């Protein structure tokens, strides 16, 4: 349960199922083909299978490229059962955030208090950080401005809209998509409310 980040990284280096990623990619591509084509006869399915095969061959070399130092193919470790629990939570966050932003827009006095927040987050996996940045931007009221190593710079419309990020709820959800995590992941939070301090 309480793995230190060092051991978690080590765990990702040993690939348990090297073919799982390829198989999932092929399955997803085939589903996409079937849905978009809408024809289920022999000819169309064979053509689709050939195309999927070509794409997989081309992609096999891309996935062996390292984009970042210490990058490992972490997407194979994405835990789908956690993803299914995460998506409803994300949907609710989007709804709640949208209503807050909408009320701020329509309110005659427009009660916004824009702030830039800088913090560090302990997510050793590059894919998790990318996902975290995207989820921050996807939830209304917060935008990721920049990510350098583990330091995030985000812009929040109101301080309340960034509350689930600062208290570590959102990064914990992201981390749990890949491994078990119970610690506090967000550290050294710095809220900037004047552009002179930037």
């Amino acid at each position, binding site marked *: 349960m309480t793995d230190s980040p060092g051991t978690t990284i080590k765990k990702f280096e040993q690939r348990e199922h090297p073919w799982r990623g390829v198989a999932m990619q092929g399955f997803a591509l085939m589903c996409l083909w079937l*849905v978009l084509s809408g024809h289920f006869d022999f000819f169309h399915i064979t053509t689709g299978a050939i195309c999927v095969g070509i794409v997989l061959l081309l992609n096999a070399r891309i996935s062996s490229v390292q984009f970042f130092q210490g990058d490992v193919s972490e997407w194979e470790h994405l835990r789908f059962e956690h993803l299914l629990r995460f998506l409803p939570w994300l949907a609710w966050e989007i709804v709640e955030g*949208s209503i807050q*932003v909408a009320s701020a827009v*329509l309110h005659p006095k427009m009660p916004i*208090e824009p702030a830039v927040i800088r913090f560090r987050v302990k997510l050793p996996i590059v894919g998790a950080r990318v996902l975290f940045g*995207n989820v921050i931007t996807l*939830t209304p*009221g917060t935008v*990721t401005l920049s990510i350098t190593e583990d330091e995030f*710079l985000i812009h929040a419309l109101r301080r309340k809209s960034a509350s689930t990020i600062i208290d570590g709820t959102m990064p914990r959800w992201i981390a749990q998509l890949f491994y078990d995590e119970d610690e506090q992941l967000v550290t050294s939070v710095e809220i900037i409310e004047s552009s002179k301090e930037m």
Partner: protein
Amino acid sequence: MGMSDMIAVLMILGGAFFLLVASIGIVRFPDFYTRLHAMGKGDTLGIILILLGLCVYEGFTLNSAKLLIALVFVGLTNPVATHALARAALRYGLKPLLKLDQEEKKPSTTSKSDALET
């Protein structure tokens, strides 16, 4: 008109409402970054609701599967585009107008003239 049609109409109307709010937000908000919130994300829920509403209207068919795929792609590309804009602005050196700057500039009035200036 069946139950599913009612739900579909309600969802599409809700989506249209959020898109409208996003457009109003672009006009009302004071600076680039806050407008980005309205533009990039105010419409997240709007598009999700409209596409889901169309799915409900369409029923369990191939077309609604295609709509769901469109939904996934919107969900993936929308934040990436928004982040790209924000990052480009930050790199260019555009300073965000934050809470204390606002109070300095014009105590307790945020109005149309403000939006027109910038």
